């Protein structure tokens, strides 16, 4: 009897230990999680990096103080990490209540998957929320005529920045045309200064160059054809011309040495401009706040200059056309509970783009997507830069949303991969076009 009893008791014990562990293991995959929020109420994920991080944090803190019974949980992620995290979380049914995004192709994939709520009727019931925001900012948040996302934060056009001090030393003028750009490349290379800073490893940074060049050479219709999936749209003569010009710029050592190993997330590309290692930089308007924070007195001393992206001789695009992010967006997860959705909508109506937030954004050198703030902009120290951004964002004849956001994730990844190869000259413009034509309509 005893010989039998000993092992079976052990078996029992080992099972007894295993059972709760197993239950824990299984449930932790299924029902609870950081994003599920079943315990902590509504949740919001946002991007880390100041100044936006602090503004969002203050906004949520104020909301939680005013609504202690329905507090919002807030988590920050780095840009590139967030894009993966949010996709995985949504696929696993663990999305936060409010999904931060850029609209466009990615938002469409959420809509197709039934993951986000249609907010059209809510905006009809709360017209004051909609009327307060830039009408044009709703475009990328609208899929098939229905609004799935509320525009938040700031309009972020891509700006042609330059270092005034270096230009004075070289006796040069900021470029107005593409041939000006090419001659400035020679000027600065001769002085041992890199003409352009670029965080090429991030790839979307190189994409901003293509976006402006496509527009300046061929006008906005070239990308509209691509967006609509017209056959061979990438092989348009204007597209080939733009791609060829970019490769000419690379071959002329237009970009800083080692641009392929620089990432934009670390802000090393901005540092190159304000430390005087590079003379010019094409980058989002958000880098203004970054350079003001990190660049010592560079911005404050008026050494940062900006001009519209140069025209291309014989090109069809209006030099006033802009590219960039018309806005960021928040959507509401369709998997959230009714209470969580209520809290989220309350946050939309009360806290997003309220006076405090608008003032905070303007103070950092950004233009919130809010109507009627011209006077506030004029009163700031940065009125010159902010007016330029406002012009670009609100009055551009065509404002092209960033391609990697406008296209589907599948086409966008292929695009970024091909841009990487184009910029290290391992493929020709024709090969680029052929590769990209295969993604049309995908």
């Amino acid at each position, binding site marked *: 009897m*005893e*010989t039998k009893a*000993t*092992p*079976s008791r*052990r*078996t029992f014990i*080992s*099972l007894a*230990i*295993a059972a709760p*562990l*197993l239950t824990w*293991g*299984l449930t932790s995959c299924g029902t609870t999680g950081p994003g599920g929020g079943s315990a902590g109420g509504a949740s919001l994920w946002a991007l880390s990096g100041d100044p936006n991080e602090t503004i969002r944090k203050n906004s949520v803190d104020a909301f939680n103080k005013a609504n202690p019974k329905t507090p919002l949980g807030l988590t920050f992620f780095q840009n590139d990490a967030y*894009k*993966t995290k949010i*996709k*995985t979380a*949504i*696929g696993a049914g663990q999305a936060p209540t409010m999904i931060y995004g850029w609209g466009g192709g990615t938002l469409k*994939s*959420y809509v*197709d*998957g*039934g*993951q986000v709520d249609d907010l059209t009727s809510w905006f009809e019931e709360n017209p004051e929320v909609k009327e307060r925001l830039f009408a044009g900012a709703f475009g990328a948040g609208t899929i098939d005529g229905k609004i799935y996302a509320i525009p938040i934060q700031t309009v972020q056009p891509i700006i042609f920045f330059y270092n005034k001090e270096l230009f004075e030393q070289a006796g040069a003028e900021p470029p107005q045309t593409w041939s000006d750009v090419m001659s400035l490349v020679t000027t600065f290379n001769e002085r041992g200064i890199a003409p352009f800073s670029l965080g*090429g*490893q991030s*790839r979307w940074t190189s994409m901003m160059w293509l976006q402006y060049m496509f527009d300046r050479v061929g006008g906005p219709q070239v990308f509209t054809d691509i967006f609509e999936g017209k056959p061979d749209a990438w092989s348009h003569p204007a597209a080939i011309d733009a791609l060829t010009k970019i490769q000419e710029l690379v071959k002329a050592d237009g970009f*800083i*040495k*080692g*641009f*392929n*190993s*620089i*990432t934009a997330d670390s802000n*090393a590309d901005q*540092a*190159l401009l304000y430390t005087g*290692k590079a003379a010019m930089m094409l980058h989002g308007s958000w880098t203004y706040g970054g350079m003001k924070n990190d660049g010592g007195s560079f911005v404050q001393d008026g050494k940062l200059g900006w001009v519209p992206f140069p025209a291309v001789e014989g090109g069809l695009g209006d030099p006033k056309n802009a590219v960039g992010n018309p806005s960021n967006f928040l959507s509401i997860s369709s998997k959230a509970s009714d209470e969580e959705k209520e809290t989220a909508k309350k946050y939309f109506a009360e806290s997003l783009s309220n006076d405090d937030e608008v003032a905070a954004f303007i103070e950092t050198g950004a233009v919130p997507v809010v109507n009627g703030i011209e006077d506030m902009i004029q009163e700031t120290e940065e009125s010159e830069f902010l007016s330029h951004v406002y012009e670009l964002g609100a009055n551009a004849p065509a404002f092209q949303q960033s391609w990697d956001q406008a296209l*589907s*994730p*599948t086409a*966008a*990844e*292929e695009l970024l*991969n091909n841009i*990487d*190869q184009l910029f*290290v000259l*391992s*493929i020709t413009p024709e090969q680029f076009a052929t590769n990209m034509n295969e993604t049309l309509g995908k």
Partner: protein
Amino acid sequence: MTATIPARRALRENAAPVAGGSTGRIAWLALPALVFFVAFAVVPLVGVLLLSFTNWDGIGAITPAGFANWASVLVDPDMLHALGLTLLVMVLSWLVQTPMSLLLGVFTAGTQKYRTVLAVLYFLPLLLSSAAIAVAYKALLDPNFGLGAGLGLPFLSQDWLGNPQLAFGVVIFVIAWQFIPFHTLIYQGGVRQIPRSIYEAAEIDGAGRVKQFFLITIPQLKYTIITSSTLMTVGALTYFDLIFVLTGGGPANATRILPLDMYLLGFRANLMGPASVIAVILVVIGLALALFLQRLGGKDNSASQLEGM
């Protein structure tokens, strides 16, 4: 008295697990581990195999795709390029790491005090995570703000991670830097297992240090080499974090090895089906490789090398 005899017999039975009846009972103890293995290894593996025959963007509905993903991935030149790179990384890291860790392992197995101090220094990289190593090297190799610029040494200011050929070499170097300490540790343990008496006998016969190394140390380390090589080559199929942070697969796909390709396809391009195909291919290559290397050791590779000494 009557109680102690069966108890002692039970003890003896437990002590000798090969003996008949108790094997079954002992096997029960493996049950929790088995349950975890099935839940967290077998089930996901089958899941991935099933996913490879479907179309899924990671968000919407999963639809069956038949063999379409397999057909497209197997002839995709990008995939073949990534597969070639993966094998190249595997071979090169074996060629770089094995001699280095073998020599370091033999060296640190000595008993002098300074060797202990050096051994501790060699093992430092082992304590760092891949991501931390990648971030550190990225900062050091930055052509504008890195080591070369900081020290004013122009030859260090190469475009290390922006030039396709250099970037691949840097990846091999950093991988070696990260993993040599681990394999050194394995070899150090292996060398310390070799009985002194063999070396003493060789010395009496007049064999020098080099001869002793090639005729005693290396043959005696046969199974250690096989173990280390298995870990090294199969491990090469999973290099991801380091390369992802260091180069992101670039420039121009020069370091886009298969595991990275799988991640970018699945989580960036939302193509879970083709990404699953690559995952299955990686599992198959890994298993085949491990099996082959174990075969190299012959049938007696789990027996003690000290038997009969």
